[in-house]
């Protein structure tokens, strides 16, 4: 170091430096610094003579260090290092002092600038004395490349790179390649058809064996370094396999249509679709957004959205078939399900939820009325294992159905003579016609399930006998019953009965005694059912409820029906004593209540009003207050624990009890719940028992447990194409036709008569098709190659590549933000890509230019610079708008009789053939008005005769305010960076310019590289540009990448950390600090070691090492301390 001989060279850079910095004075000063052997100034150091000057001095004077005071090291560091290297001096013994970008260009005061330049030179000279020779090392480069984005830029680059014969991964997030260019009709200025020139390239991509097309794919993470990146790509499920032949049969049967993004939402497409005719890959794709909440909310996972959509398309048979496939008690659910699906229906946020339950009933009634046989799902291979199910309620029946479908030998034991459990004994026939229940039980029987009645668990059979008889698993689904006895005087009198017992007697016809006057106590479904049943048996009925109508747990409609039929309801009334004579009920003494603060359940607590007692004379008191499972026999027999409302302990996930072969579900476990909840338990238990009997762990269930957190409203939105709730046209729910109250109160026939076909279709069409695909599986049914795969899931892949090209393109400025132009508000204001689709012969109007009302426009205004060249939005020029606006003018003139008005600020026609094209369009008679349009308004007054809209502007050529009536307005919305450009920027650690486009390494000289080695950019992700420029940049980037592939290796900057083992104390602070996990601890030597291949040279560990044991080559402590000394010497 002390013997270092330093040469200092101060560059004038013409006048760039010399005009502000006294370069001669800087050189004179430099000569006075320690160890400086020579200091010179020269006009252009980077020129050949400049470099030779340095080389000569190295040779003649024996310089051992060089300082060049010139431009930024980003510009010429490599130049001077190479010059030194050529003269036999290691390039890393040369240091640059940046006196141009950091000094002469930003300061005006010559004296201050010269002083600063001296300090920078002194710093460099002081630092360079401590430099040591460093050697560039080389690492192999993976010749595989990745291109992100498959628009024209990505396609072009892929085709170029494919020529190397190496692997090219083309990642595209859409279902097809082609990007925005595929949407264009004609391209300026040559007017060649966009599809005609693009689609051959698209096909060509698909034919290249070494181009791996990853559609529906997005990059999630990048690791590794230049030459050896690993890119993590998530490929979203297509739900259609490679077997797809693109025959299109699926799209014909798909009941869901949504606006087509390819047609800029002007046209429609089905949920299973191909983006456009020439899409590559040529295969269909199913769009699934979030799963519809109706399905999420259903414990059975019934495809509510699916059958609703099918009914909307008058496919009643298909709807019924879909329902039946998943639901063995479909008609039952169509009547008595409490339909949690409707509670979660997004239509409810518009006005009222879709009447899903009524539609289900309609589909099944229609099928029955039309003699459609609904085949059960296919039965799996026969299994010899016998399974016992205790209880034939909804839980037991569904479990029996599912296990039978899985091939098991199932026997159901029912204690009563009637099958169906609560469905048969607890629900009166006017809510659930018995023949429907019997029909569905018959379906289950037809699967081979043995149904034995009159067998009581704990009496004829026990777990012991069942096991002895060869049952390998038992499902307890004994449900609930029994009164929780109130501490009410007189309950022992004849004529007091529990609600469930009363209903059972009525339903089973076992106690048809004359009822006389009936009082029902309670406010739940059982109470209301009991009251209405008693009414139908001819009794006057009074219903007592201790709270008000608002707190009543029974469904509101049921209460209304009961009142209409003649049940007298007395709210805020509670019994205090049953009165009797000769052991029989004669009346009920009651007290009036008032509501106090909320109790533990959140409902307001009723308090008796003193002195309000009165007596209701009656002959029968039905206590329908609370229910609890009758588990005495279970507890005695099986020794199950029971607590509170959960009489039998079973794992809520697996339904398994403490005895591994015994499962339990439904009300016996969960306490009183609903029919569909019980069915859900049955389904879960069947899957658990199948796993158990197959020796598989009870995990990874495919069946569904409804979890309230899944149903948080804010997590569900109708799909992105639906109008906002506030903008959705109102359509009230179809009312269920019903029989007259008086008529229906006289018998046990059904109350509602069911939708007509027209009503059902209308109601079904209210569905918003949340999730787009509704999983009706019609596509699956018609697909001959069996390519539809609804169960497909996303795939995450780690792909090793050497280099990556980003060609992610642009998005259009949202013209709604420039509200003065009325986009999104006035019907016939379009943005450029929409108009592009409209004039495309393959577009939604087959190329006809029509207003929304279907008329050809008399005049069209084309507004330039919407969102661009505008201080409020984007200051930059979007570059392509002038020319495509002229193209639109030409096409409109060519195809319609409409007048065209262009509103422009400056006409930018700078490209090859552009000016000529401008002239041609002017000759064709397009009107051009120089002036930025101020606003677009609906026409009023006399102007309305000439157009529906009026464009207002200042015509700056004639200096006058103008109002131009037109029928259609096209906004040339600016190109802007993709919404997720920032996410990609972070993934690839590149930069964005202030306008948000990706930052190139140099705006003029290096437009395809980024500051991150091995990451390149091309096309509109770098800035707005037209197709020729995009293609040129893409080819340029590909050439850069090919150069690296040909070289086959990557130069590794020697700026890296290393640990001097003798100084390392083994504290391991650095181990966790390294973002690349490049530092490992050598247990044998008790020191940390830097893995050189992984180190990227940031120096964070160097700064953190308390022992100073880590050296950062090129940026050592000594070098930086020396630099500081020089810097502050002046």
């Amino acid at each position, binding site marked *: 170091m002390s013997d270092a001989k330093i040469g200092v060279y101060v560059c004038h850079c013409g006048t760039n430096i010399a005009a502000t910095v006294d370069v001669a004075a800087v050189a004179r000063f430099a000569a006075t610094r320690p160890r400086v052997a020579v200091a010179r100034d020269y006009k252009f150091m980077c020129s050949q003579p400049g470099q030779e000057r340095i080389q000569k001095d190295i040779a003649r004077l024996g310089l051992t260090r060089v300082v060049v005071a010139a431009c930024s090291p980003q510009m010429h560091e490599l130049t001077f290092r190479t010059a030194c290297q050529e003269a036999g001096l290691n390039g890393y013994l040369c240091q640059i002092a*940046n006196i141009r*970008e*950091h000094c002469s*260009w930003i300061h005006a005061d010559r004296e201050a*600038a010269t002083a600063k330049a001296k300090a920078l030179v002194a710093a460099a000279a002081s630092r360079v004395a401590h430099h040591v020779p460093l050697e560039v090392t080389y690492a192999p480069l993976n010749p595989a490349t990745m291109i992100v984005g498959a628009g024209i830029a990505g396609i072009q680059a892929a085709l170029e790179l494919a020529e190397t014969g190496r692997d090219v991964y083309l990642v595209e997030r859409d279902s097809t390649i082609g990007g925005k260019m595929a949407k264009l009709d004609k391209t300026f200025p040559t007017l060649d058809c966009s599809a005609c020139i693009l689609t051959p390239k698209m096909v060509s991509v698909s034919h290249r064996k070494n181009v791996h097309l990853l559609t529906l794919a997005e990059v999630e993470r990048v690791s590794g370094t230049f030459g050896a990146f690993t890119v993590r790509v998530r490929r979203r499920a297509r739900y259609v396999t490679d077997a797809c032949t693109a025959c299109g049969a699926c799209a014909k049967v798909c009941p869901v249509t949504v606006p087509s993004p390819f047609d800029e939402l002007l046209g429609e497409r089905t949920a299973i679709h191909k983006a456009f005719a020439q899409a590559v890959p040529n295969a269909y794709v199913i769009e699934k957004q979030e799963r519809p909440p109706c399905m999420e909310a259903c414990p059975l996972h019934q495809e509510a959205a699916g059958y609703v959509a099918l009914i909307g398309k008058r496919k009643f048979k298909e709807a019924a078939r879909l329902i039946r496939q998943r639901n063995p008690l479909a008609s039952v659910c169509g009547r008595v399900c409490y339909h949690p699906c409707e509670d979660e229906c997004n239509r409810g946020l518009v006005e009222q939820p879709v009447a899903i339950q009524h539609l289900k009933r309609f589909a099944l009634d229609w099928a029955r009325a039309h003699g459609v046989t609904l085949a059960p799902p296919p039965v799996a291979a026969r299994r010899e294992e016998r399974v016992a199910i205790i209880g034939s309620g909804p839980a037991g029946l569904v479990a029996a159905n599912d296990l039978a479908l899985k091939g098991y030998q199932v026997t159901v034991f029912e204690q009563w003579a009637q099958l169906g459990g609560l469905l048969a004994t607890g629900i009166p026939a006017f809510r659930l016609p018995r023949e429907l229940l019997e029909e569905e039980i018959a379906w289950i029987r037809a699967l081979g399930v043995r149904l034995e009645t009159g067998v009581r668990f704990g009496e004829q059979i026990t777990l012991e006998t069942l096991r002895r008889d060869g049952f390998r698993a038992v499902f307890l689904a004994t449900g609930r019953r029994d009164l929780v006895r109130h501490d009410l005087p007189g309950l022992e009198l004849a004529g007091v009965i529990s609600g469930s017992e009363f209903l059972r007697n009525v339903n089973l016809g076992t106690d048809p005694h004359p009822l006389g006057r009936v009082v029902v106590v309670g406010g739940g479904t059982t109470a209301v059912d009991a009251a209405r049943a008693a009414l139908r048996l001819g009794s006057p009925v009074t219903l007592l409820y201790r709270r008000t109508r608002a707190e009543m747990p029974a469904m509101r409609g049921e209460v209304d029906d009961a009142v209409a039929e003649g049940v007298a309801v007395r709210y805020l009334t509670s019994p205090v004593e049953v009165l009797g004579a000769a052991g029989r009920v004669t009346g009920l003494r009651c007290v009036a209540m008032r509501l106090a603060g909320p109790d533990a359940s959140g409902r307001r607590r009723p308090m008796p009003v003193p002195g309000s007692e009165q007596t209701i004379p009656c002959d029968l008191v039905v206590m329908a207050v609370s229910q609890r499972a009758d588990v005495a026999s279970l507890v005695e027999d099986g020794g199950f624990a029971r607590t509170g409302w959960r009489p039998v302990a079973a794992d809520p996930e697996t339904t398994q009890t403490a005895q591994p072969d015994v499962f339990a579900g439904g009300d016996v476990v969960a306490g009183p719940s609903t029919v569909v909840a019980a069915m859900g338990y049955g389904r879960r238990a069947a899957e658990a028992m199948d796993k158990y009997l197959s020796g598989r762990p009870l995990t990874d269930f495919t069946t569904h447990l409804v979890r309230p957190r899944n149903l948080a409203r804010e997590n569900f939105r109708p799909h992105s194409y639906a109008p906002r709730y506030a903008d959705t046209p109102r359509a009230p729910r179809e009312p269920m036709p019903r029989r007259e109250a008086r008529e229906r109160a006289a018998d046990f026939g059904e109350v509602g008569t069911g939708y007509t076909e027209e009503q059902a279709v209308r109601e079904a069409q209210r569905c918003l098709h949340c999730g787009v695909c509704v999983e009706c599986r019609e596509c699956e049914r018609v697909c001959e190659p069996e390519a539809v795969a609804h169960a497909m899931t996303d795939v995450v892949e780690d792909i090793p590549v050497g280099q990556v090209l980003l060609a992610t393109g642009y998005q259009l400025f949202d013209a709604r933000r420039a509200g003065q132009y009325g986009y999104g508000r006035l019907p016939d204001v379009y943005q450029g890509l929409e108009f592009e689709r409209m004039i495309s012969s393959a577009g939604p109007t087959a190329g006809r230019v029509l207003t929304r009302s279907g008329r050809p426009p008399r005049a069209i205004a084309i507004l330039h610079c919407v969102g661009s060249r505008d201080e409020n939005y984007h200051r930059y020029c979007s570059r392509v708008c002038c020319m495509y606006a002229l193209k639109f003018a030409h096409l409109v003139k060519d195809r319609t009789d409409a007048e065209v008005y262009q509103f422009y600020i400056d006409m930018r026609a700078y490209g090859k053939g552009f000016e000529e094209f401008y002239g041609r369009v002017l000759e064709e008679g397009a009107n051009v008005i120089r002036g930025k349009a101020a606003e677009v308004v609906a026409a009023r007054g006399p102007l309305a005769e000439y157009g529906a809209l009026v464009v207002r502007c200042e015509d700056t050529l004639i200096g006058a305010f103008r109002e131009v009536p037109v029928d259609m307005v096209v906004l040339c919305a600016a190109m802007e960076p993709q919404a997720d450009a920032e996410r990609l920027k972070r993934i690839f650690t590149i*930069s964005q310019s202030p306008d948000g486009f990706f930052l190139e390494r140099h705006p003029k000289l290096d437009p395809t590289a980024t500051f991150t080695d091995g990451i390149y950019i091309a096309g509109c992700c770098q800035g707005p540009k037209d197709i020729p420029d995009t293609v040129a940049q893409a080819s340029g980037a590909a050439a850069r990448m090919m150069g690296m592939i040909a070289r086959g290796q990557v130069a590794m900057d020697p700026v890296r950390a290393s640990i001097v083992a003798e100084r390392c104390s083994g504290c391991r602070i650095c181990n966790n600090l390294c973002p690349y996990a490049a530092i490992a601890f050598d247990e044998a030597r008790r020191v940390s070691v830097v893995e050189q291949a992984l180190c*990227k040279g*940031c120096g964070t560990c*160097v700064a953190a090492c308390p022992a100073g044991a880590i050296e950062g080559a090129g940026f050592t402590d000594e070098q930086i*301390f020396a630099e500081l000394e020089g810097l502050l010497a002046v």
Partner: protein
Amino acid sequence: MTFEPRIVGFLCNWCSYSGADLAGVSRIPSAPNLRAIRVMCTGRVDPTFVLRAFELGADGVLISGCHPGDCHYAEGNYKAMRRVALLQAVLKGAGVDPARLRIEWVSASEGEKFARVVNEFTARVRALGPLKAAAEPVAAAAD
């Protein structure tokens, strides 16, 4: 004559040094008081560099790196941020106004911001006056 402070700037190679270059290319004028040292990452800035700068007579030290989340090396800028917080406490203990040490985020595209930061910080340090009395205790802390 007004006091002209000498300020040392540690600029990371990827964001702030390039941002300063862009300010130059765009000819955005700024105060000549800042003298830059290029480091690969602000994570390389050893606290002793800062203390040594003050010891050698700097009136202010600016550390400027990539925006949070944008670090070329994933998280070096967070490390720098933590060290600056500690350093400021040390400086305060040594009788140096912690406002003399500043950390900023300037991206490669923020030439204008770079110039603004330099001007603002220069004005702030100028207002604080020369760093004299504090030099000795700082030197002690550095050893």
